[in-house]
C-alpha cells in the first residue's frame, strides 16, 4: 500500500535528514514509526504525504509513483500533521466542506460521515463554530474528521494523539483498527511507546536519519518492553 524505497532527503547539500530509508506498509498494517526528536520521522512522513519533494529514492502508493503522479496518489491517502494548523477564520463545518470538495465527496456521503465521525469524536455540536474558538484538541479532532471524510485507504499521521483527551484517543485507536479491518493501512509516528506497543503490528525505529530496526512488533521487542529496546538501540 505504501512503499518507500531508498528514500533520502537533504535540506542542505551533503547534510542528510534521512538517508537510504526503505519501508513497506501493507494492507492491514498499523505501522508505528519511532525515533527521538530530530531523527527524521516528520521528514519521512511529509515526503510520504507529498508535502516535501525529494530527489533520491521512490515512494509508491498502491504501486503508483508519488513523484510521477502526485495528485492520483494523494486521492488514496489522508495526512494528519503533527500540528493542527487550520484556517481559523472558517467554521468547522466550512472546513470539512472545503476538504470534501477537494476530494470530490458527494453531498450525501459528506453529510453522513460528518455526522458519524463528529459524534464519535464528540465535536459534532461545535462544528458550527469558528475554528478560532477551538482548543488544540478540538482542532486535532477536526483534522481527523477531515482526514476520514473521503474514506482513505491509507492514513499517514504525524503524532496523532498529541492534544487528544483520553476518550478521543481511544476513539482514534478504534477508528484505526476499523480502517485496517476494512483492508486499509495506517502509518504513524509517535513518541508514546506504550501506544505503539499496544496497537502496532509492525514498527520501525529511526536514528539520525537511518533506519536501525524494522519488523513486526514481536520481532523488535522480543521478550523486553519496547521502551527498553528503544533506549538500548538509540543510546
Amino acid at each position, binding site marked *: 500500500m505504501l512503499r518507500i524505497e531508498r528514500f533520502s532527503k537533504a535540506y542542505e547539500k551533503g547534510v542528510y535528514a534521512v538517508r537510504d530509508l526503505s519501508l513497506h506498509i501493507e494492507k492491514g498494517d498499523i505501522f508505528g514509526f519511532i525515533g527521538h526528536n530530530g531523527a527524521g520521522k516528520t521528514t519521512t512522513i511529509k515526503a510520504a504525504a507529498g508535502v516535501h519533494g525529494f530527489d533520491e529514492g521512490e515512494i509508491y502508493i498502491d504501486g503508483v509513483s508519488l513523484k510521477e503522479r502526485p495528485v492520483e496518489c494523494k486521492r488514496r491517502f489522508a495526512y494528519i500533521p503533527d500540528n493542527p494548523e487550520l484556517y481559523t477564520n*472558517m467554521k468547522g463545518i466550512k472546513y470539512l466542506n472545503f476538504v470534501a470538495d477537494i*476530494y470530490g465527496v458527494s453531498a450525501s456521503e459528506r453529510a453522513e460521515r*460528518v455526522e458519524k465521525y463528529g459524534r464519535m469524536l464528540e465535536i459534532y455540536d461545535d462544528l458550527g463554530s469558528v475554528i478560532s474558538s477551538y482548543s488544540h484538541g478540538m482542532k486535532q479532532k477536526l483534522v481527523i474528521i477531515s482526514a476520514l471524510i473521503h474514506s482513505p485507504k491509507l492514513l499517514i499521521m504525524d503524532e496523532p494523539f498529541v492534544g487528544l483527551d483520553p476518550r478521543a484517543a481511544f476513539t482514534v485507536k478504534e477508528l484505526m483498527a476499523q480502517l485496517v479491518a476494512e483492508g486499509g493501512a495506517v502509518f504513524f509516528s509517535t513518541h508514546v511507546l506504550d501506544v505503539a506497543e499496544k496497537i502496532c503490528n509492525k514498527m520501525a525505529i529511526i536514528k539520525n536519519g537511518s533506519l536501525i530496526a524494522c519488523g513486526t512488533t514481536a520481532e523488535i521487542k522480543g521478550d523486553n518492553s519496547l521502551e527498553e529496546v528503544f533506549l538500548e538501540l538509540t543510546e
Partner: protein
Amino acid sequence: MKNILTLFRAEAYSSLNPRRMVESRSKNKGGAVNLLFGVFLVLLIIGSACFYAFTIGKALSDAGTPESLLFIFFAADALLTLITAASTGSARMFRATNMDALMSMPLTGFQIYTGKLMAFLAENYVYSAIILIPAFAAYAYYAAPSLMFILAAAALFLTVPMIPVGLGLLISALFSLFSFGGRSRTVRNFIGIALFVGFYLLLMSKSGDIMAYLIASGGGVIDAAGRYFPPLKWAMEGALLKWGPLLLFAAFAVALILLVAWLASLRFGRRVGALNASPKAKAGAVKTEAARSAFSALFRKEAAGYFSSFAYFMNTAFGPIMLVVGAVYMAATRSGAATNDAMREALAPIMMLVAVLATSTCSTAASSISIEGSRLGQLKAMPVRPRDVFAAKIALNILVCSVPALLAGVCLIAAGVVKPADGLIIIAGVLCFAVFTSVAGLLVNLRHPKLEWTNENAVVKQSASVGLTLGIGFVFSAICGAVFYLLTFKAEVGATVTLAALAGLAFVAALCASLLLKAKGEKLYNSL
C-alpha cells in the same frame, strides 16, 4: 528603559533583519544571497521613487515652488503610514503570537508597548525612506539649499513618520477597545473602512483648495500646511532651515509618541487578554453543502481568508479602494463637466497611470503563499494540482483589482473626465496590469515566501516578495510614464494611441509573467 531597549532589539531583529524577510528555498543559499537580494530590492524601489520625485520636482521647480515637493511627499508618507498604523496597530501591538511569552515576563505594559512601538517605528523608517529620501534629494537638486539642509532633512526624516505612527496607533488602540471577537469585529471593520473612505473623501473635497495653494507662491504652500495641520507648517519651515519651528516640530512628534505609548498601554494586560481570548463559541447550524469543484473550493477558501482579516484587507486593498472612491466622487460631482476635449485627451493617460499605480498596491497574490504559513503542508498533501492552487490565488487578486478598476473606469466615463472609447481602453489596460501584477506577485512569493510569522501583517509589510512586487508595479508604471512622455510630447500622437500602447504593454507583461509561471511555478511550489 533597559527592558524597553532589549525588547525593541528583539522585535526589530525579527522585523527588519533582511535575512528574516525571505525563507525556505533562499535560506539554503546563505545570507549573502539574501543580502544582495535585499539591496537589489531597495535600489529598485528607491529608483522608482526617485523617478517620481525628480519628475514632480522638475514640474514644481519650473512653477517656482520646489518646496511644494516636500509638502506633497510629507503628506503622502503621512497618509500611507497613518493607514498602515491604524489598520495593523492592533495586531502588532496586542495580538502578536509572542504576546503570551512577553506577558509572562517581568515587564510592564508600558515597556512591552513601547518596545513594540519603537520596532514598528523603526520598520516604518524603512518605508518612509523610500518616499522621503528621494524627495529630499530632488528638493536639494532643484532648490539648491545650503549644506545645513542635510541636518534639517535628517531631523525631519526621524520625526515626520512619528506623527502618523502615533496617530495611527492611537486610532487602532481606540478601536481595540471594541474588539471582542465575533460580530463586533465585523462591525468594527466596517466602521474602520467607512472612516477611511470618509477621510479620503474629505481629502478629495479639499484637494482643489490644496492644489490652488500649491500652484500659488512658496509662502502659500506653507500657509496651506499650517491651515490644515499646524505641525506640518513647522516641518515645512524646518525644511527651509528655520530651526525654531523645526525644534518645535521634533518636540511635538516625540511628545505625541510618548503620550500614545502611555495611553495605549493603560490596562494593557486586560486589553491583551480580551483581544487574544478565543471568541466565545456560537454554535451555528451544522450544514453540509453541495459538492463543488476543487477550484471553487480553493477560491472560496482564499476569499474567506482575505475578507475576514481587516488588517490584511486594508494592507492590500487600500489602493483599489482609493481608486474607486475617487472615481465615484468624480462621477457624483460631475468633475469632468467643464472639461473640454483637449483636456480629456491630456487627462486620459494620467488617469490610466493613476489606476495602474493604485492597482500595483494590491498584493494579495504576492503574499498568498506566505499567508498559508504552516498550513501549506496540508494544502500540498491534498490531491490538487499546483496550477489550481495558483489559479485560485491569482483569481482573488484579479477580482480585488478588477472590480474597482471596472467601476472606476465607468465612473470616469460617466463623469466626463475621459471619452468613452478611451475609458474602455483604460479599463482593458488596467485589467491586463492586474493580471500581470497578480501572476508576477505569485511567482515572486513562490520564490521568496515568508512562511513563519508572528502576525499576518508580517506577510505583507515585512515580506521581500510584497516589496519586490510593489517595486515591479512602480517600475512598470514608471515605464508607462516614460512611454506616455515619448508618445505624447515627442511623437505627439493622440491619447487613444497612447492608451492603446500602454494597454498593449500591460498585455505583453501579463503574457510573459503567465508563461514564466507556467514554466517555473510548479517546480517552485513543490520545493517549498
